[in-house]
């Protein structure tokens, strides 16, 4: 059982968290101008990096979405950060 750190609640057990997606994707809009390939790339394609990964997670008990950087092999958590504008 890993420990992740919610930027607000602090360190909690991994079962309180849910993986969202790889970070850094911007939803392509408006829909009519987006090609099938571009949409599929946004929706489905990943890096699945071996090693350092930057991901969006949600802390289920408080509902906070945040950014976590971690190593997918060693499982070391490197950084966590609130979404922009949420730090306050």
């Amino acid at each position, binding site marked *: *059982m*890993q*420990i992740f750190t919610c930027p607000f609640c602090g360190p909690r057990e991994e079962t309180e968290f*849910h993986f*969202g997606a790889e970070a850094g994707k911007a*939803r*392509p*809009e*408006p*829909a*009519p101008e*987006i090609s*099938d390939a571009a*949409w599929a790339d946004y*929706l489905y394609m990943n890096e699945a990096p071996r090693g350092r990964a930057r991901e969006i997670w*949600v802390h*289920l008990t408080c*509902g*906070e*979405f945040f950014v976590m950087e971690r190593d997918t092999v*060693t*499982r070391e958590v490197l950084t966590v950060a609130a*979404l922009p*504008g*949420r730090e306050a």
Partner: protein
Amino acid sequence: MSGWRLPSGGAIDRARPLGFTFDGRQFEGFAGDTLASALLASGTRILGRSFKYHRPRGLWGMGGEEPNAIIDVTDAGVTTPNLRATLVPLRAGLEARSVNASPTAERDCWAVLDLLHRFLPAGFYYKTFMAPDWMRWEPSIRRMAGLGRLDPGNRPPADAVPMNARADLLVIGAGPAGLAAARAAARNGRAVWLVEEAPAIGGALRWRGGAIEGADWEAFAADTAQTVEAAGGRVMTDTTLWGAFDHGLYAAWERRAGRGDRHWRIRAGEVVLAAGALERPLWFANNDLPGVMSAEAGLHYLSLYGVAAGRRVLVACANDAPYAVAGALAEAGAQVTLADARADTPEAPEGVRLLRGARISRARGTREVGAADVDGAHLDVDTILCSGGWTPTVHLFCQAGGKLDLDARRDALVPRPGTAPMQVAGAANGAFGLQAALDEGHRAGGGTGPAPRAAAAADWAVMPMRPDPASGGRQWIDLQNDVTFKDVKLAAQEGFRSVEHLKRYTTLGMATDQGRTANFAGLAALAAVTGRSVEETGTTTYRPPFAPVPFPVIAGPRRGELFNPPRRLPLEPAHRDLGARWRDYGGWLRPATYGEGDEAALAQAEALEARQAAGLYDASSLGKIEVIGPGAAALVDFCNYVRMSTLEPGRARYGFMLSESGVVHDDGVVLRLAEDRFLVSASSSHTASVRLMLEEARQDRFDPRQVFVHDVTAHWTTLTVTGPGARELILGAGIAEEVAALRFMRVAETAWRGVPLRAARVSFTGDLSYELSVPARHGGMLMQALDGARAAVGACWIGLEALMILRAEKGFVLVGKDTDGVTMPQDLGWTGPREKRTDEYLGRRALFTPEARRADRRQLVGLEAEGEALPVGAHAVPLEGQRRSLGFVTSSHMSPVLGRPIALALVEAGNDRLGQEVGIFHLGETRRARIVPACSYDPEGTRRDG
């Protein structure tokens, strides 16, 4: 028959003899014995048969490493298979039975297999049993395999208790190194958890004895335990630390006599591993014969149980450790010869004949040891105690990612410092001597100043011992799985030279002893055969569990009532009083029907009564998510397929929540309670995910200070009244006229009998319906009032089964039942927003992929058929041409109000097929049905307003 009980000595209670049986024969031991010590004392040699060749096997070790003495134990009428005799405390009346032998270990009819051994080398089964077919051979092979027998009547209770704990310092193993570490740390004020697998602390001190700091070791151990507890720590015995997991989590299994075991999840700040070392066997021909034992185990049984392993004993070794057992056995009266492979040895213990530079090459005897060949000489012995060196118990270090180095002086793989987040001390680190263990433990525990002093010899070296490649006999490497040196050679010859391949091809190390005594030997043998070093050869991966752990310990209390429990209605007792029969619907326990009788008939009657008069049902499980704030309308718009920002306050609208892949995730009504306050309904099983989707959009896309999401489902009890008599019924219950007068898809927040009441004119049946919600504490009052008004209109309570009929008659979908994971809103006939909306919403782009634009998508339709209801799960097939699936029936009922079957189905280009006939295929039979619109009852909606 060689082991014998000394007249005195050992930590057993000779005043309390305990009778037990083994393979049907009666024996006696003493309180404090283990099954193994009692059997050893009885002189019983053959305790089991080997897995493959059915060779006779006897006791080897003293703990979890035991490869041979695997026993089915019946205690108090309950049988448990595959216990190690070394770990079973003796109890009166215990019945023990050998495994893998028929009828008994003594006389096993399968022993004949050993004669065929030369035709059954490693992996022989990959080369044969191919004709005519493996399946012909498998049943008999399966019956031969397996160890113990499962008792179908033994259903162990789910009484293990999970425990979460934090430990500042976790010390694993309470031998000398662990004790020293724990004491040093506790003296520094640290809260130490000292965890020991054995029933008592002390490790090898328990049978080796010794003086520490000028007193008996027990004083040191007691002082340590006291110091640890005084500093807020904890000493746990009978506790196996079995797994090292990520982020400093350790799993431990604590055995508690007479109470449920405990499953500890310990989050440790720092860890000291002081798990000791295990003695390795020696390799000589017939080294598997009963009577060949671990030398250290010989001392263990002698000291703790007063049992000598034999009368004429050969102790064979190449290190100092067994000198103590040789001396002790001689003192106890056995005739002892010590064969040390080293030329340079310590002095012989008193009464022991020492052969320097001497190696054993063969054990003789057919069923047990009768003699030994040492350097060509024939020694008349009944017992051979071996020590082929020591294997540090590094499992947890390696589980935590640690790497090993070969320490040539000690002929052992030892932890490479810094490769795992723990310190290792004592024999686990290759420090085999008592003083070295104390020194290392003291330092690992952060001790300053001198370590505890022992009155013991210095550390000693181990001369590497290996299988003899020139030996003509069979040298066993893995006793339980019957892997010999020749098997290792054959594997290497056939190219299985990776240590993982060796393991898998020969099964070396894969038995229930997890290769404790076998792995290093196998690895060393493979290295020798392939001309590589031990380090180059590498080890297999260490994974939890360190020792076999009972399934119930890990599984914990999550069983029966506690396994995936459904959510419960606050009014459950009241529904029970009404005779509800219950079922799990979407994770909620809800009434299926009311009253006694056939469920289908009850549902028919309830549905009919609801159509004719009125029905009442508990809709509290329906998700209620408030979206509040100036940004609420925009958020709800984005998250719904149907625009909600155009709703006026006090009105409601039906819509869908889509996933980004365009698939219908949920459906439900959105109520606009105020300009800046919406109530989003979610189906019972989707409330959590809908709330999360709203939260995600809120935080990721909108100004999260302008809109907020509250899941208030559990605050409310919702009772719905539906049917032509609904208005009369609620008026009869004293609900205000203004509520009764609400128009369709309107909502009112009002009060009733002084409590808040929210009433909505939404309908899941097509009939006039009122959805009435009050705070849960007032639910009983509302239920009573409605129930009291029921008789006047002839209404009844309806369960989910009837409700399913009512909504299916109207063609209303149940997401997840009438939709699947590819269903898009246009497939349900909701094409408007897709065509008209120009703003962004969840799933929008995915509604326009080539697949989403296809004309032949599966669409929701109704089916009309004669006779009985169509089976759900039946497929629609063309009546002519090639038979293929056009889709499938998703809901199907006999409609009591229509007097005929109705069904919903997802059918390829269903809308284009309206009026056509199709075949309905179910389990080989095909009926006919006509494709019709999904709504089969009151398509004009005349009943909506009563």
